[in-house]
């Protein structure tokens, strides 16, 4: 099964189970969770079933194309089922069968792995899924997002596509993967890994990244009308009514901040104490977006409550 056949098999599988198939986000994200189709849709009461590929950037994981297992950009296949159906584990195992992996002939285990994104103010409980000792997926029940309690709960399945493909194709080096017949992963990405590693570790302009971080951070406040004053118990205050806030452009700015922070981190330009401060700053603006998104959807009457059948993915 080539890399693209793997993606197509998952697309078909989840499409047949009632998921919307959408496209990757057109901004730099560290994981599929950052895509607004996950981060924002996990908030509030509206149901949401979606699946997509997410090219995910982890600047610190770059290895100049020299390590057979590590990449600064890899591909996640992300599935969100909200509310999480009771048979979500069975659905996941069925999806492995759709990839030609019969769980009975392998050792598949659900190993405790709680997930937390300090920058997104999000956390959940769940597992990493092991296939014959290889971690192939993350499985998370979101409990909080943007500092807000989730209700209903979204189930998030994240497949590590490169790892699964390496397993299925029986190769030890990611660059030897067949993306399509005759085209290897290395043909497409090896040079890119070297360039991005060189950029992230050596050449990214530190002052520019810091400046961009600050500009985008400011933008979030402007676009949401975020007030400097805090309400009771530190509650965020907004000068704009919910429907006048531009939550989506503001969220893009949050994504940018998070990305510039990651580049600065890879550049070694952030000390341990500064690190915590940066994370706190991103968390604050992510929370402001999350609250604004919720307020907007509420003002709109949570339209998807009527449109989507909550059980679609479970059928």
């Amino acid at each position: 099964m080539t890399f693209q056949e793997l993606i197509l098999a998952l697309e078909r599988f989840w499409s047949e189970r009632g998921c919307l198939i959408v496209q990757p986000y057109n901004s730099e994200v560290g994981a599929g969770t950052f895509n607004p189709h996950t981060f924002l849709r996990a908030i509030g009461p509206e149901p949401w079933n979606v699946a997509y590929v997410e090219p995910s950037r982890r600047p610190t994981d770059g290895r100049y194309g020299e390590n057979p297992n590590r990449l600064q950009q890899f591909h996640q296949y992300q599935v969100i089922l909200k509310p999480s159906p009771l048979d979500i584990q069975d659905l996941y195992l069925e999806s492995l069968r759709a990839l030609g992996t019969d769980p009975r002939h392998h050792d598949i285990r659900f190993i405790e792995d709680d997930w937390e994104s300090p920058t997104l103010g999000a956390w959940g409980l769940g597992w990493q899924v092991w296939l014959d000792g290889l971690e192939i997926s993350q499985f998370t029940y979101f409990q909080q997002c943007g500092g807000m309690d989730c209700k209903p709960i979204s189930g998030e399945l994240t497949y590590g596509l490169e790892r699964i493909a390496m397993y299925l194709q029986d190769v030890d080096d990611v660059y030897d993967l067949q993306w399509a017949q005759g085209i290897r992963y290395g043909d497409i990405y090896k040079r890119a890994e070297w360039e991005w590693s060189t950029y992230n570790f050596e050449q990214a302009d530190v002052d520019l990244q810091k400046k961009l971080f600050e500009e985008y951070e400011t933008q979030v406040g402007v676009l949401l009308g975020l007030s400097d004053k805090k309400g009771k118990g530190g509650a965020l205050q907004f000068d704009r009514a919910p429907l006048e806030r531009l939550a989506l452009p503001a969220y893009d700015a949050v994504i940018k901040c998070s990305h510039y922070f990651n580049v600065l981190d890879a550049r070694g330009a952030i000390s341990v104490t500064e690190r915590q401060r940066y994370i706190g700053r991103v968390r604050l603006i992510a929370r402001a977006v999350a609250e604004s998104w919720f307020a907007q959807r509420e003002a709109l009457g949570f339209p998807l409550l009527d449109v989507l059948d909550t059980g679609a993915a479970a059928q």
Partner: protein
Amino acid sequence: MSSEFLLEIGTEELPASFVTQALGSLKASALELVSQARLGSEELEVHTLGTPRRLALRIRGLAPRQTDRNETVMGPPWNAAFEADGSPKKAAAGFAKKHGVTVGDLRKKTTDKGDYVSVQVHEAGRTTGVVLAQILPQICQGITFPKSMRWGPGEISFGRPIHWVVSLLGSDVVEFEFAGVQAGRATRGHRFLAPATFDLDAASSYETALERAHVLVDLTRRKDRMMEGLLGAAESLGGVLAPDAFLADECVSLVEEPFTVPGSFDESFLELPDTVVVSVMRDHQRYFAVRASEGGALLPSYLNVVNTAQDPETIAKGNDRVLRARLADAKFFVQEDRKAPLADRLQKLESVVFQSKLGTMGAKVRRLQANARALAERAGADPAACVEAARLCKTDLETLIVFEFPELQGEMGRWYAMREGIDPAIADAIRDHYRPQGADDVVPDQLVGAVVAVADRIDTLVGCFGIGLVPSGSADPFALRRAALGIIRIALEGPIDVDLRQLLEHAHAAYAGDAELAPLDDVRASLESFFRARIRAMLKDAHGGDVVDACLGAWDGASLRDLQSRVEAVSEVRAAPEFEALAVAFKRAFNITKESARGPIDAALLETGAETALAQRFETVRDQIREATGARRYADALRLVAKELGEPIDRFFEEVFVMVDDPSVRENRLRLLGEIADTVNGIAHFHHLGTKLQSRDSSVSA
């Protein structure tokens, strides 16, 4: 004939620690509610069983029905319920209604506090099934987890989502609902080997029915089976299993039916340090290591405990691949690291923050060298070796391998140092200065390691206390409690004594130029009481809190071994039969003289008899006692006190009245007792010791 009851809650995969805590709380909850519901009997036996996918409870010896309830229930005060003429008020009617009786059934009960309404309640016991149905939801609500989660609609909180509930009394379903799930008799087998739902006939056939469905629900049996598999597999590989209790507990809680699948790796990876190979296998993959013999060399093999083994070759192949990639990474890191000596990393430590207000790791390392030198000189260790070990002890933090495997800090520093040809005493110290890591870990057994271990911990303690980072409640982010306990344990169990006062002074002085700390006196005051609290916590179980307090009272806060000698000596005499009377007498002497002035004793004012006898005896042994105390021979000192002063002081208190009217006689007596009390207090403060007899003069001390 009593029936067996079974409760099973089927869930998604629970983490190991969740199962342990959940089963403990389930058992406690069941015991409490069953006895509250009057279902208990002499033979009551509550047992829990569990796997990652189920929590189960078995109760045997339940009474077939509740015992009847006959009791007098008290109500409101009589005159709040009845008028003076005996006609009932609202309160009487309400109380009667609540208990299902008429006002005419209410009786007057006279108590110390006045007259009250009472009623005789009789409630016939109901059958066990009926009662269980009522209390089961509460029993289930008593289950706790380290962390709970919500799922689906998000209304319910549990360790993981709940899928089914079985509740059987004998062969009958006890109906109840928990977390939106109706209890029944349908359970499930192994997720992969017997996934179908099936009905249980009766509670008593639970274990056998599940075993047929590939689930060993009893943890002990499952673990025995797992160990058997592991030991056998190790033997067929021509080696022995490297025992690992923690890993065994972890693995057994990840499977419902354990199988062992052996795997292997290329022999060239054995060039890596054993700890790296074992760490990769154990911490990342949960594999058991195999050695050629007990404590012998590693074999290029591992043992993997899995949940299914239909196709062991496929499983081994997949796991081999994962392990190979991880070991290849480790090998690469080690090769890179060895390109430069450890000392080359000192420069990098200059840009690593130790703590934002306390400066860099580079500065810390310089302070460690100063502290180590001072300590070494006092402990009779080689100062040059101690300083060099202090200089190198943090360098491995800047190696790739430790960045990747933080748990190998120290171990890898030692390994690299050995290969650089560094003095083994120094290399060992790089590893040992992290010891003890916790209550179960050993302390450094060599001088150099012990010196650096103490130097490192005191630097962290003084620095953090100096900027107000004092642990509070459960918050102790710099593990300062553990650091203090480490110093205490090294002094008491390891090769060097520690003079806490000097240590604090040196460590504080070493910060000059690096950070602004609070003044020495302030840091010392708060750290000393911090240490005293740790010492007390550590020694109280073995010796008794009062013994430790008594010794802490007399201790000057300097040598930790001095304190230990006191504690051991007092602990020893405390067991002696004459101790009780002795302690009471000295407590009394202390209490009565607490406020009085000290001064020379005037022999002319002593009464003949008990008073003179005591004074003379004290005069002859006083210097011996003080000498023994000064030489820290506390057991000898206490033996002298008991042997020489026990009888005379008892007699004194029997025969002599201290607080006489004549002020000069009274004062002279107080001076005699005061000097005796002071002498004994130099060893330990006896007034802290708990005694069965209370001092007869306790009122004086009030």
